[in-house]
């Protein structure tokens, strides 16, 4: 059974050496009990303590890391079934599949486009994580050529797919020094796959028709020394994938069942239609996948998927905030009024979205209200006349919106008197209470 932070602390060296990256042994012990770190981060732990802690210190879903030149994808280490219970930690990696039979020119063109893809969402640049190279010809030379073709255009981590260990080995040789993911160990080839994974320090996908067979296989592989495993359940549709992923996550968390305590890889790429592939990928994001292998790339479908991943993996314990500052919407001019709101992300998006869709220009002053919504921040004293006046000065609003008209959210109309005192040369107006009424308000104001 899992030990508490205190119980773990008693087994630690209690020297507070900080080498694990935490300030005290107690802090490290608490992280261990929350299964967010591995015991190996402590260089001084005794053998005896190790044995006692081994069972409780491993995260219920093992952390698997893929590495290539300058890139890293980490998945696993998850501790909850529902994100509101804590948070989902490691975003699933999106990997795009190429087949060696496609030929080098086609592979290079596809990889180049995907590698270069980046899209900005609320100030974050979202990108795709890597590529999967699929042996379809049964030819080591062809496979190696495909791996090299990918490497010519991208340095992102790779998944190598083949049933043949000789072919996989040829591919692994072409990317020596990297930590790749190899697909897949099965009931037939697991011993050779375990050797291969160990020799090339690769992570290994385990493939089986049923979860029972999968659990048997992971045990055997672990005994052979292959520890960085990834589970490939057999489902390719919505229903079966959802159930298999859910059962795996539940077994790992609720029952602390080690044989299924690994990240999951899903293959939306096997869907017949591109639109189904996208929908399956969306399900995989919300429902427990660690790696998501895709076939068809287009900006209009990968953008929503990357945004979904960002949203679902947002930490619900922290109110998400946007950067305080002066935002421009629909090309405002110096005469355009300044709308004030807070930096709670949902508040910001509601207001920005309404102004944007209204087609009317606006300056949006996002005040630093510690990530709270308008009324909450006002009640907590984080959104008052003083704070707004401070931000007006800090972001030099008067230099851009020279007509100096400032619109308060209707909910805090009460601040207008004080604000007039704080900003004597500004005209203070009171806007609507709800952002949905902003378009009508702006239309009238113009």
């Amino acid at each position, binding site marked *: 059974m899992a030990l508490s932070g205190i119980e773990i602390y008693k087994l630690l060296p209690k020297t507070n050496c900080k080498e694990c990256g935490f300030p005290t042994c107690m802090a490290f012990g608490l992280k261990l009990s929350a299964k967010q770190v591995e015991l190996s981060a402590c260089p001084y732990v005794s053998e005896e303590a190790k044995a006692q802690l081994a069972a409780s210190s491993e995260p219920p879903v093992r952390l698997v890391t893929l590495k290539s030149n300058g890139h890293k994808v980490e998945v696993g280490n998850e501790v909850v079934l*529902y*994100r*509101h219970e804590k948070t989902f930690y490691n975003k699933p990696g999106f990997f795009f599949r190429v087949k060696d039979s496609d030929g080098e020119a086609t592979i290079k063109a596809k990889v180049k486009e995907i590698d270069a*893809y*980046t*899209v*900005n969402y609320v100030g974050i640049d979202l990108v795709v994580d890597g590529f999967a190279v699929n042996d379809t010809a049964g030819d080591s030379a062809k496979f190696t050529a495909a791996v090299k073709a990918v490497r010519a255009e991208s340095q992102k981590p790779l998944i190598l797919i083949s049933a043949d260990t000789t072919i996989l080995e040829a591919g692994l040789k072409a990317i020596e020094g990297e930590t790749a993911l190899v697909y897949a160990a099965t009931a037939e080839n697991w011993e050779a796959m375990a050797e291969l994974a160990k020799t090339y320090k690769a992570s290994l996908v385990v493939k089986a028709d*049923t*979860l*029972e067979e999968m*659990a048997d296989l992971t*045990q055997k592989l672990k005994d052979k020394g292959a520890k960085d495993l990834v589970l490939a359940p057999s*489902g390719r*549709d*919505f*229903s*079966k994938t*959802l*159930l*298999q992923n*859910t*059962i795996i996550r*539940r*077994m790992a968390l*609720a*029952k602390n*069942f080690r*044989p299924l305590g690994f990240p999951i890889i899903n293959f939306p790429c096997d869907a017949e239609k591109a*639109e*189904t592939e*996208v*929908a399956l990928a*969306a*399900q995989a*994001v*919300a*429902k427990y996948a660690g790696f998501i292998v895709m076939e068809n790339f*287009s*900006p*209009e*479908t*990968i*953008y*929503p*998927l990357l*945004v*979904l991943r960002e*949203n*679902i993996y*947002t930490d*619900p314990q922290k109110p998400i905030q946007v950067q305080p500052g002066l935002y421009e919407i629909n090309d405002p001019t110096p005469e355009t009024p300044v709308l004030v709101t807070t930096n709670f*992300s*949902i508040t910001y*998006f*509601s207001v920005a*979205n309404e102004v*944007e*869709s209204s087609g009317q220009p606006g300056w949006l002053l996002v005040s630093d209200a510690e990530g709270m919504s308008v009324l909450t921040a006002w009640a907590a004293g984080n959104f008052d006349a003083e704070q707004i006046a401070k931000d007006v000065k800090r972001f030099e609003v008067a230099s851009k919106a020279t007509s100096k008209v400032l619109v308060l959210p209707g909910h805090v109309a009460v601040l207008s008197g004080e604000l007039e005192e704080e900003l004597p040369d500004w005209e203070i107006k009171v806007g609507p209470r709800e952002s*949905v009424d902003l*378009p009508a308000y702006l239309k009238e104001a113009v």
Partner: protein
Amino acid sequence: MTLEFPKDKWSGKVQEVVIGATAEDGGTRTSTVTVGGESTMPFIHYEAETPHRPVLALEIRDSKPNDWSEILFETWGDAMEDPAQWAKAAEEAGAELLLLGLNLEQPDGTPNTPEAAVNATKAVLGATGLPLMISGPGQAEIDNELIVPVADACRGERVVLGICEDKNYRTIAAAAMANNHLVIGRAPMDVNLSKQLNILLKDTGLPFDRILMDPTTGALGYGIEYGFSVMERLRLAALRGDAMTQSPMVVEVGFETWKTKESKVGEDVPESWGEWKERAITWETITAITLIEAGADIVVLRHPESLKRVRAAIDNLVEAPELA
């Protein structure tokens, strides 16, 4: 190795709700929909079966709206000029349920009137046999002014009247009571507020099997994670036996996604956003699928292609797979 899959033991169950009444039950609908009844988290077939599939509704308006995306204008075309035609087109597009939204204004810019709203509702009821949800424009006084006569005009049809919010639920609930209709209550993305509104609605005397709840969601990129988690929490609370969270959940995915810039705007957007129409449909589709997997019972969409794609996912999700 034989595995025993971990099962949650739930004591509660989502309320079953029937929308629409056929001639047999005093209405004129040719079909009805039944939602709710779940006793597991969504589609966990090995715990219990999914008694009713999530229902897909399309949103139409009593007159052509002026603020919808160009893509939607193109899709529905002239049908948008006439609510009866629009209702027929939506039925042909595969809707199982219609949401008739009453606009604030008539096409000529004058305020909407009870007469116009009643005429539109009657036209829609005459044009299609589908069950109906009817919502006001979302301003308390006007909602009451329009919804009450509409409720009278379609007495016995078991339509869903909306939107009840904490400050504005009594009139609509009374209109539902008097005419054998249902209501939908909407709270702003908060488990406790949803629950509280359900308590208020129940206190009006409305039977619990005539209440639906809209927990409110954000679109993908605009707060979907809040909607997603609130819905998961409401469903978990319902399964744990908290009676006032056991109403089936409705989400207006079409309304939320089609007002985002990604769906509404085709020009002067980053190249990395890709092709407009496919992006907009994907936005609506994956918002819907994500929320269905968090427990949505009714999803209101705006584009027929999204409906087709979401339905394909639902067709598969409701089938219990072979796990052995």
